[in-house]
C-alpha cells in the first residue's frame, strides 16, 4: 500500500460518520494531522480576546475536536479539527472577570458564519453588485503591491488612505507604522458611536484624552447622564460587574443610582429613579446640581479645580443655574434638582457619568465638561467610588517606534483632504479598509458612497460582504479572531494598565490571512520595502510585550501574557502615555449654548434618537443569528427594527402598537414599526441602529431600516463628531401592523390592568 492510498484509507475510515454529508468524498477527502493538543472528546480551554468592541474583554475558549468541511491547499474535504465550541469570560481577566456580554458570547458565530468570505476575491462586476471571482493570495498581494508601487513611483504616497475603526491596539500601531513609512497620512477613523466628545472633555477637564473607568463597585450614589454603561457603552461587562457589587455586593450597603435621559435605556431601566430631561440640557442639570451644592456650602467651588474653572460662571457659584432656572431649561422640577444635589453631595462617594445621547448634541462638549466639573466638585476624581483613568501603555514607545504624538486628539473623520497630512478617504487613489463601514453608519447626506465611488482602487480586509466591502475591488479576508493572534489594549475597565493577547485558538478554516501579516508582507514586497522590523504580527507582539515587566516571577511578560490571555500591572516608566496634558489654551470658559437641532420644530415636531442596539451596537453585529434572535431587553423585539414612541404621542397621532410609521427628517425618511413604550418623552422618537443593511450576509440583508440614513449632518463643533441626536423628524402612520415587527413577549404593558 502506498502512502497516498494509506492516507485515503485512514481518511475514509476516520471520517465515515461525516461521509453522508459530503458529495463524492472519495475524490475530496484529505486527512490532516490533527492538532497535537486535541484529544477526541476532551475539552481544552484556551485564552482569547473578544474582538467585537473596544472593551477588550478576555476570553477563555472551549476547544474540542469536530469534523469540519474545510479548504486546505485549494482542496475541500472533511477534516477532524480542533474547533472552538464556546466563548466564556476569562475568570482572571482584569476587565471582565469571568463575565461576558451577549455579544461576546455570540462572537463565535463570526468564525463559523456560513457567509464568511473564504478566500481572496477580485471584483468581477460593477462596484456594489457583489460579484466577485476567486483569486490566489499571490496574485492578490501582487496586485496590491503594484498599486502601491504605482503611487510611490508617481511620488503620490499621500494618495494612500486607510480607513479603520480606531482604538488603541498593536494592530493600530502596525497600521500607523505602515502608513508612516510609506509616506501616507495616518488612518482615517470612523466610529458612529465614538466617544470623541467625552475624550476631548476629559482631556480638557482632567488632561486625560481617554474614556473614564467608573469605580461603581465602591460608589454609594451613581448619577448617570445618558450613559448606557450596563448595555452598550465603554466596557459594559466591567461596568456591569461593578454595578452588581454596588447594588448587592457589600453587606448592608446598597448604592443608589439615578439616570438622566429622555429615552429610557437598558441602563436607565435599572435605575432607582429615572429623570427625563430635555434633550441637550443635561449639562444644565449638572450645573444646577453644582449650584445647589455650592450654594448650600456642601462643597466649595474651588474643590472642582481645573474642571470647574473651565465652566463659565463657576467661581461665582453658577448664579444663573438656580433650581428654578434649571427647571425652566431642563424640565426637571426645581425641588427634584435640590434633592438630587443633596443626594449627590451627601451619599459619598458619589460619581456622575456622562455618555451617549447627551454628548451627541451640538453642545455635547459643554455637557461633558459640566458633568466633569460636578464630579470634580464632590471630589470623585481618582478616588475610590469615583472616576479613574486606566493607565495606558504607549505602545509605539514600547516598540521603540516613533508614533503619533501620544495623547493627541484623534483627527475628525473627513471625506476630503484638508491639510496635507490629514486622514481622508475621498481623495485617495488607493484605499485600504479595515473594519469600518461608514457606508452604513454615516448619514446618507454625507455622501460616503459617492465619495468612495471616485476612489479608483479599494481593498477591504473584511470577512463579510457588507456595504463597505461590496464596494471593494479586492477583498483580502482576515482570519477570524479565533484563528489569528489577537490583542487589545483596553482603554478603560480596570484601574491598572491592561493588554490582552492570545495566540490562535484553532487553525484557520479557510484560505484567509491575518491582516497584520498581510500588511507586513506587502511592506516587504514593495519596490521600496518599508523595513518594518517584524516578519509576522506575533513577532511584533512579542517585542511589545517584552518591554513590559512580567507579572509572574516564573515567566517573562510575553510568555505569561500568552498563558493568561492578558498582561496587567503598573506601567513601566517611560512607557506611559502622558499622564496629563497641559491645560488647554486659555480659551473663553465653556458656557451653555442651546443645542441646535436640524429641522424646524413646527414641521418636525419630534426629536429623533438613534441609539446603539443592545444586540448589534452600530450594526456591525447584525449578521450573527444569536443576536438577531435575542429579545431586546426593553421591547423584546427580535429580527426587526422598530420606532419607540410614547403612548400619549401615539394616541394623538392615531398610532397603535406595530403600526408602520414613516420617520422623515429634512434629509431622508425611513419606515419601521411602532413600539409604544412609556420610557420615552412624548416629544421624542427613538430607534435602534443595527438593522437596515442593504447587504450583510443572509441574516441581516434587507432586514429592517437604518435610522442613520435619515440623520442630519450636525456635528459637535470642537471635535467634528457627528451629533447623532440632533435631528428632528416628523412621524406619520403609513399602515397597519404588517408583520415586520417580531416580538418575543406578548406586549409592552404587561401588568394586569384592573377592571371593575
Amino acid at each position: 500500500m502506498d502512502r497516498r492510498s494509506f492516507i485515503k484509507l485512514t481518511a475514509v475510515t476516520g471520517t465515515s460518520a461525516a461521509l453522508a454529508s459530503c458529495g463524492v468524498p472519495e475524490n475530496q477527502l484529505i486527512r490532516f494531522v490533527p492538532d497535537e493538543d486535541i484529544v477526541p472528546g476532551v475539552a481544552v480551554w484556551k485564552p482569547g480576546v473578544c474582538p467585537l468592541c473596544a472593551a477588550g474583554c478576555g476570553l477563555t475558549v472551549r476547544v474540542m475536536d469536530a469534523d469540519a468541511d474545510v479548504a486546505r491547499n485549494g482542496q475541500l474535504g472533511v477534516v477532524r479539527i480542533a474547533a472552538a465550541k464556546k466563548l466564556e469570560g476569562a475568570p482572571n481577566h482584569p476587565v471582565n472577570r469571568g463575565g461576558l456580554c451577549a455579544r461576546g458570547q455570540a462572537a463565535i458565530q463570526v468564525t463559523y458564519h456560513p457567509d464568511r468570505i473564504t478566500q481572496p476575491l477580485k471584483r468581477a462586476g460593477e462596484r456594489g453588485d457583489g460579484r466577485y471571482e476567486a483569486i490566489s493570495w499571490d496574485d492578490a498581494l501582487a496586485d496590491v503591491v503594484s498599486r502601491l508601487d504605482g503611487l510611490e513611483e508617481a511620488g503620490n504616497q499621500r494618495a494612500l488612505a486607510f480607513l479603520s475603526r480606531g482604538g488603541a491596539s498593536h494592530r493600530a500601531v502596525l497600521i500607523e507604522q505602515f502608513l508612516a513609512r510609506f509616506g501616507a497620512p495616518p488612518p482615517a477613523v470612523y466610529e458612529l458611536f465614538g466617544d470623541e466628545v467625552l475624550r476631548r472633555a476629559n482631556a480638557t477637564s482632567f488632561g486625560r484624552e481617554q474614556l473614564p473607568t467608573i469605580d461603581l463597585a465602591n460608589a454609594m450614589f451613581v448619577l448617570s447622564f445618558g450613559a448606557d454603561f450596563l448595555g452598550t457603552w465603554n466596557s459594559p461587562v466591567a461596568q456591569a460587574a461593578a454595578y452588581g457589587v454596588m447594588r448587592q455586593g457589600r453587606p448592608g450597603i446598597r448604592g443608589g443610582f439615578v439616570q438622566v435621559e429622555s429615552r429610557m435605556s437598558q441602563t436607565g431601566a435599572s435605575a432607582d429613579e429615572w429623570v427625563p430631561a430635555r434633550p441637550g440640557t443635561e449639562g444644565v442639570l449638572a450645573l444646577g446640581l453644582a449650584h445647589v451644592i455650592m450654594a448650600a456650602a456642601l462643597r466649595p467651588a474651588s474643590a472642582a479645580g481645573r474642571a470647574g474653572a473651565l465652566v463659565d460662571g463657576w467661581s461665582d457659584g453658577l448664579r444663573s443655574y438656580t433650581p428654578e432656572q434649571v427647571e425652566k431649561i431642563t424640565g426637571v422640577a426645581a425641588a427634584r434638582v435640590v434633592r438630587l444635589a443633596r443626594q449627590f453631595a451627601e451619599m459619598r462617594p458619589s460619581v456622575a457619568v456622562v455618555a451617549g445621547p447627551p454628548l451627541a448634541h451640538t453642545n455635547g462638549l459643554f455637557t461633558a465638561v459640566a458633568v466633569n466639573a460636578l464630579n470634580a466638585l464632590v471630589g470623585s476624581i481618582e478616588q475610590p467610588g469615583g472616576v479613574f483613568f486606566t493607565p495606558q501603555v504607549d505602545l509605539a514607545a514600547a516598540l521603540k517606534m516613533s508614533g503619533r504624538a501620544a495623547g493627541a486628539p484623534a483627527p475628525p473623520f473627513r471625506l476630503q483632504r484638508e491639510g496635507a497630512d490629514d486622514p481622508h478617504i475621498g481623495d485617495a487613489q488607493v484605499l485600504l479598509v479595515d473594519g469600518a463601514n461608514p457606508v452604513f453608519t454615516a448619514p446618507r447626506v454625507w455622501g460616503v458612497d459617492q465619495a468612495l465611488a471616485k476612489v479608483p482602487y479599494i481593498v477591504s480586509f473584511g470577512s463579510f460582504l457588507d456595504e463597505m466591502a461590496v464596494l471593494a475591488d479586492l477583498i483580502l479576508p482576515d482570519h477570524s479572531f479565533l484563528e489569528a493572534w489577537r490583542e487589545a489594549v483596553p482603554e478603560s475597565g480596570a484601574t491598572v494598565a491592561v493588554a490582552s493577547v492570545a495566540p490562535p485558538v484553532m487553525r484557520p478554516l479557510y484560505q484567509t490571512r491575518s491582516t497584520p501579516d498581510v500588511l507586513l508582507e506587502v511592506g516587504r514586497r514593495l519596490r521600496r520595502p518599508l523595513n518594518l522590523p517584524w516578519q509576522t504580527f506575533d513577532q511584533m507582539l512579542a517585542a511589545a510585550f517584552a518591554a513590559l515587566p512580567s507579572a509572574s516571577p516564573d515567566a517573562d511578560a510575553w510568555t505569561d501574557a500568552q498563558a493568561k490571555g492578558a498582561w496587567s500591572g503598573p506601567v513601566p516608566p517611560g512607557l506611559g502615555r502622558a499622564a496629563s496634558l497641559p491645560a488647554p489654551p486659555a480659551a473663553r470658559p465653556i458656557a451653555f449654548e442651546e443645542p441646535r437641532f436640524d429641522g424646524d420644530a413646527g414641521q418636525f415636531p419630534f426629536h429623533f434618537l438613534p441609539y446603539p442596539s443592545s444586540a448589534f451596537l452600530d450594526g456591525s453585529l447584525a449578521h450573527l443569528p444569536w443576536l438577531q434572535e435575542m429579545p431586546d431587553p426593553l421591547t423584546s423585539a427580535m429580527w426587526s427594527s422598530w420606532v419607540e414612541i410614547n403612548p400619549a404621542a401615539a394616541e394623538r397621532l392615531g398610532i397603535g402598537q406595530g403600526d408602520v410609521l414613516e420617520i422623515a427628517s429634512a434629509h431622508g425618511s425611513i419606515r419601521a414599526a411602532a413600539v409604544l413604550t412609556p420610557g420615552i418623552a412624548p416629544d421624542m422618537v427613538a430607534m435602534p441602529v443595527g438593522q437596515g443593511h442593504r447587504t450583510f450576509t443572509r441574516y441581516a440583508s434587507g432586514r429592517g431600516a437604518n435610522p442613520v440614513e435619515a440623520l442630519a449632518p450636525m456635528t459637535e463643533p470642537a471635535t467634528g463628531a457627528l451629533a447623532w441626536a440632533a435631528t428632528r423628524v416628523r412621524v406619520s402612520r403609513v399602515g397597519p401592523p404588517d408583520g415586520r415587527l417580531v416580538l418575543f413577549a406578548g406586549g409592552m404593558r404587561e401588568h394586569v390592568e384592573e377592571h371593575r
Partner: protein
Amino acid sequence: MPRWGMAADLDRCNGCGACVVACHAENNISTVGPEEAARGRAKHWLRVERYWEGDFPDVRVTFRPVLCQHCDNAPCEPVCPTYASHHTEEGLNAQVYNRCIGTRYCANACPYNARFFDFFNPSWDKPLHLQLNPDVSLRMVGVVEKCTFCVQRINGAQVQAKAEGRGVRDGEIQPACAQSCPSRALVFGDLDDPESQASRLSRSPRGSHLLEDTGSRPKVAYLARQA
C-alpha cells in the same frame, strides 16, 4: 444528595441578555429565523422578562430572568404520559427528549412557560454546526425542550470531583447563564447545603419564589429589587 437550585438577584440583573445567548451557545438551542420567530416559535430556555410600571415620566422597570424553576412539585411532570418529564434524585426536573412524544401537556401545565416545543427539526446553516456542544444532545422535531440547569456541567463537575476523591465545591458548578452573567445576578448551588452561596441567598429576606401559590415549590429564588 444535593438539591440544585438557583438564586437570581433582581437588584443585580440589568437585563443585558448575556445569559440568553450563553444558554443558546451551551445547550445547542437552534435559532428559528425571522419568519418562525414572528410565529412565536423562538426558543429561549432562559428569558429576561421586563415589566413596566407607571407612566411617563414616573416609569419603573423590573427585569426578571425566567428559566425552568426545577420545581420540587413540578406541575409538568405528572401530566407527562411517557415519563419524558420527571424528577431526578438531585431534584432536577429532567426532560428525556427520546421519550417525548410531543403532547406538549407539560408545556401547558408549566406556570412559567419555561418549556419550548420544536416545531421543526432544528437546523444550523453550515458551518455554524461546528459550534455545537457535543455534551448536549440535539433535539428533533416534535419534542419539548427546556432548561436543564446545564446538567452536563453538573455531571462533569461531579465526575471530576469523584476522580479527585472529593466532593463538589460550592461554586464549582456554574450553568452557562450564571457563568456568563456580568453582574453576577445568578448564583447556582446546592440548596441542601446551608453554607452554599445559593442556599444563603435563597434564605435572604429579599427572597421569594415565583408563583409559589401554584404549589409548585420552585427552586429558583428571586431576590427583590430594593428601594
